[in-house]
């Protein structure tokens, strides 16, 4: 009960943030919530199932383009485009998993990275359709939902919150379900799981596909809420970012991805205001984190003080 209360309390605080944050910061918070959905998906694959992927940018971009291209080329509205984006991420993840999950460990990282790079180059190759490096802006007509203009502050914030809340509560329900425990079993000892009758390939494929659904939702949400689709989202930077969010917030904790995304965003914002070498400050913060809280912030909190934290 206290677990659900904690998560609902966070959502309540986020809901009120639109009233006390400036429009600029509220927009940033909406962006953080969308990126946190991406990180939540990454956390399900990496934090809970032990799949260290370097190819999640492919899944984010799959969702983004699966939503953005129909909106751009066929004039789809936000609802169908968003659903197409989720499906795009899930399908890309399933296809990636069918091939990459034949490997494990470092090989899995390399193979996922390779596919993500292939995806990025494909987007550049088909630049006349995808917009290549420049990308394209999603038409305003495709950014409305039930009459609400999602390009304006308040509807955009509420839409981001709705997607984040759905992702967070679904993630919590999933990790507390029998399948969630199976994911953890897989992470802890794959061979032992097999000896208990689990088809480890199927479990990992399912976890990766769910992770892809989250990445697809985040990509589609980004395209619709912020109106931009571009190949830069398929670069390795967007495979590294969710990993950093998860590592910073706490891998294998439901709230860690949001906390990591929030802190990283704030850290980059603050560092950018101080120096042009802001990545140096971010790097130093990450080194400090590894030294003093190797399980991430919430992972450390759970280990030391709050054992019930999911």
């Amino acid at each position, binding site marked *: 009960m206290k677990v659900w209360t904690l998560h609902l309390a966070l959502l309540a605080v986020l809901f009120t943030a639109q009233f006390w944050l400036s429009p600029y910061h509220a927009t940033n918070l909406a962006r953080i919530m969308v990126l946190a959905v991406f990180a939540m998906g990454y956390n399900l694959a990496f934090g809970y199932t032990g799949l260290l992927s370097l190819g999640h940018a492919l899944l984010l971009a799959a969702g983004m383009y699966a939503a953005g291209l129909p909106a751009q080329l066929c004039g789809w509205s936000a609802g169908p485009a968003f659903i197409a984006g989720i499906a795009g991420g899930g399908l890309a993840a399933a296809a990636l998993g069918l091939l990459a999950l034949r490997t494990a460990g470092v090989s899995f990282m390399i193979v996922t990275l390779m596919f993500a790079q292939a995806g990025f180059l494909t987007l550049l190759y088909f630049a006349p359709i995808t917009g290549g490096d420049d990308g394209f802006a999603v038409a305003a007509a495709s950014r409305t939902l039930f009459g609400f203009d999602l390009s304006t502050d308040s509807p955009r914030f509420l839409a981001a919150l709705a997607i984040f809340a759905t992702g967070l509560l679904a993630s919590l329900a999933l990790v507390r379900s*029998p399948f969630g425990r*199976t994911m*953890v079993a897989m992470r802890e000892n794959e061979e032992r799981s097999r000896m*208990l009758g689990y088809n480890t390939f199927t479990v990992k494929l399912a976890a990766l596909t769910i992770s892809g659904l989250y990445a697809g939702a985040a990509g589609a949400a980004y395209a619709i809420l912020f109106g931009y689709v571009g190949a830069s989202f398929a670069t390795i930077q967007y495979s590294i970012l969710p990993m950093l969010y998860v590592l910073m917030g706490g891998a294998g904790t439901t709230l860690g991805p949001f906390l990591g995304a929030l802190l990283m965003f704030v850290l980059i914002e603050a560092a950018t205001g101080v120096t042009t070498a802001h990545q140096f400050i971010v790097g130093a913060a990450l080194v400090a984190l590894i030294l003093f809280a190797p399980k991430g912030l919430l992972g450390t909190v759970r280990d030391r003080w709050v054992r019930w934290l999911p």
Partner: protein
Amino acid sequence: MALEVQGLTAGYGPVTVLRGVDFRAEPGQITCLMGRNGVGKSTFLMALMGLLPGASGTVSLDGTPLHGLPAHEVPKRGLAYVPQGRRLFGPLTVAENLAVGGLVRGNDSATQDHVLTLFPRLRERLTQISGTLSGGEQQMLAIARALCLRPRVLLLDEPTEGLQPSMIALIQDAIRSLKAEGVAVVLVEQRVDAVLKLADRVAFMVAGRIEDAMPVKGLAPDADVFRTYVGV
């Protein structure tokens, strides 16, 4: 007959460890497997579970062939394996470990209740993170988790290794209870006193083969077979 193995040959890549093992385990009996280090006892249990690709020979349970099945299908057919070193899912609680153990056979409360009757100490620790249990409790949980599969044959690899005597006694009691319920227990064990106390039959492995097998009844702790095959 519960478990019958004929001509089982297996190993790791190019290294052949098992060289045509013939073996039988009967329901309601405890069969101990003894032998010096490196003769293939643990490899034999892994091969039974289908964990060694490229194994040849036949393994059948009540006449149903198990050889050639993917490893994850074997536990569903009635074989459960508790490897050396326990290997729990450390961050999960005791209850969650048991739930994961029984999921593929459709967790039912009667099975879990029965398992907790065998190991009452675990009932007191259901919400405890399994990684924080004592060594003996972890071993109990490893066995309990395997029992959630409702096995007809239980393979145990040195389950009392490194445990204090009181814990050893509790685990041995549980193994006797399983025998009384008709489970065929195959136990890899190095200690002669434990074998004499628990087993109905003992099989001796030498260089990847079963060299000798006999009833335990009548064997003395200083019998020649122990000196010959185990070196004690």
